[in-house]
């Protein structure tokens, strides 16, 4: 009962946030509301037992997306102009689609029922056999990295491809000619500087914890990469992008991103050389369980590297555009 109550309150908050987004014309407020939307949906994911997903949503949806959107409205202007065309037709289209979808939900099995078809076929096998076959407590990591490793390789390649897309649209962030000076960034905010310096090492430590503890608790390469990128984004925002470029330069990121994908794919190739299928980790070491462990650690490292490089690369590309428009 409590779960239902928490769920209802959170869903109500989401509904109000979404309605506010429709009517607001101030894009800054719209982006902030979207950030709140992401955070509240992360809470709902926790309530629905999806801890790994909630972790990712909080770091990615509320963190990186918001920063990128704020960078975009810094370039494109803060207010939406008045809408000229009528919205009656839009409302009708939306209502008809919504009614059709709700009619569709009537045929779905009831929410939360353990006898639903979705829980009958693949999931029991993952839940019962993965501790023996893969040997990790976190089933999500086992499925992500081992059973559906090929799928995850594809996702990693998509993240890499998106980075290439953004870099080819916005241009790579060239190292700025002017030396890094304390004037860049939020120079007046002494308190921010001190606090950022205190917490950035802890954020990076946390990212490493999430990366290597993902087999046992919520976490893994995707979350760790995003958190590590967030630490450097915080550094760049507080001290200026040129300082961050001295730690991890855009050129290095262009090496890291493909390196992660190659690391991932080469684990699969090693398995093939040893006579098994692509991404079969059982043959990597003397026993199957040890092989699974090595394989998962290495491919999570590859995922973390690519996601870190892609997220930071996206931020560098956007911040470079903003700085260039400020100079002009």
């Amino acid at each position, binding site marked *: 009962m409590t*779960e239902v109550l928490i769920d*209802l309150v959170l*869903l109500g908050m*989401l509904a109000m946030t*979404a309605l506010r*987004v*429709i009517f607001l014309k101030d894009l800054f407020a719209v*982006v902030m509301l*979207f950030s709140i939307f992401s955070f509240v*949906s992360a809470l*709902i*994911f926790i309530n*629905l*037992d*999806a801890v*790994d*997903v909630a972790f*990712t*949503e909080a770091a990615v*949806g509320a963190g990186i997306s918001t920063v990128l*959107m704020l960078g*975009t409205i810094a370039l*494109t*202007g803060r207010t*939406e*102009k008045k*809408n*000229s065309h009528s919205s009656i037709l*839009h*409302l009708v289209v*939306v209502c008809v689609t*919504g009614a059709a*979808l*709700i009619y569709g939900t009537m045929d779905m099995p*009831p*929410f*939360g*029922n*353990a006898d*639903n078809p*979705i*829980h009958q076929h*693949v*999931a029991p096998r*993952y*839940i019962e056999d993965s*501790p023996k076959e893969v040997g990790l407590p976190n*089933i*999500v990591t086992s499925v*992500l990295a081992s059973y559906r490793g090929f799928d995850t390789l594809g996702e990693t390649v*998509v*993240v890499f491809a*998106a980075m290439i*897309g953004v870099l080819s*649209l*916005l241009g790579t962030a060239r190292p700025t000619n002017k030396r890094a000076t304390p004037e860049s960034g939020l120079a007046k905010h002494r308190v921010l500087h001190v606090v950022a310096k205190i917490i950035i090492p802890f954020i990076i430590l946390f990212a490493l914890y999430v990366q290597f503890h993902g087999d046992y608790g*919520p976490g893994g390469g*995707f979350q760790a990469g995003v958190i590590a990128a967030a630490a450097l984004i915080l550094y760049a925002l507080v001290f200026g992008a040129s300082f961050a470029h001295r730690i991890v330069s855009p050129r290095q990121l262009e090496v890291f991103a493909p390196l992660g994908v190659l690391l991932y794919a080469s684990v699969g190739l090693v398995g093939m050389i040893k006579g098994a299928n692509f991404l079969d980790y059982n043959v990597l070491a003397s026993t199957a369980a040890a092989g699974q462990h090595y394989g998962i650690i290495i491919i999570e490292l590859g995922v973390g590297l690519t996601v870190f490089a*892609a997220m930071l690369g996206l931020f560098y590309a*956007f911040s470079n555009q903003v700085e260039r428009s400020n100079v002009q």
Partner: protein
Amino acid sequence: MSVIVDYYNYWIVVFLMMAGFYVVISANNLVKKVVGLNIFQTSVFMLYISMGKVSGGTAPIIIEGVTQYSNPLPHVLILTAIVVGVATTAVGLSLVIRIKHAYGTVEENEFQNEDDAI
């Protein structure tokens, strides 16, 4: 009454989806359209995760003595989808920046008018 208890979660998620959809088709500003698309996307994630929930189950991390776990498969699919979602959002936003450079505006009707004038 049981219908409401069985389906309320799906219905609210459909409402959120439609709110995002409305923003996508009615907003004039491309950045706002991207925000609407993201709201739609997050609602779809919520639909998947709702389907994986088992009432009385816990998060799919093996603990001694617990037998009822929620379904891990939707979690895996959505976890990767979130990261891919932000990557594609970034591509969309950089297209918006390019449009701003090319036309000087990101309001849909204004740059369509410019296209028509050519």
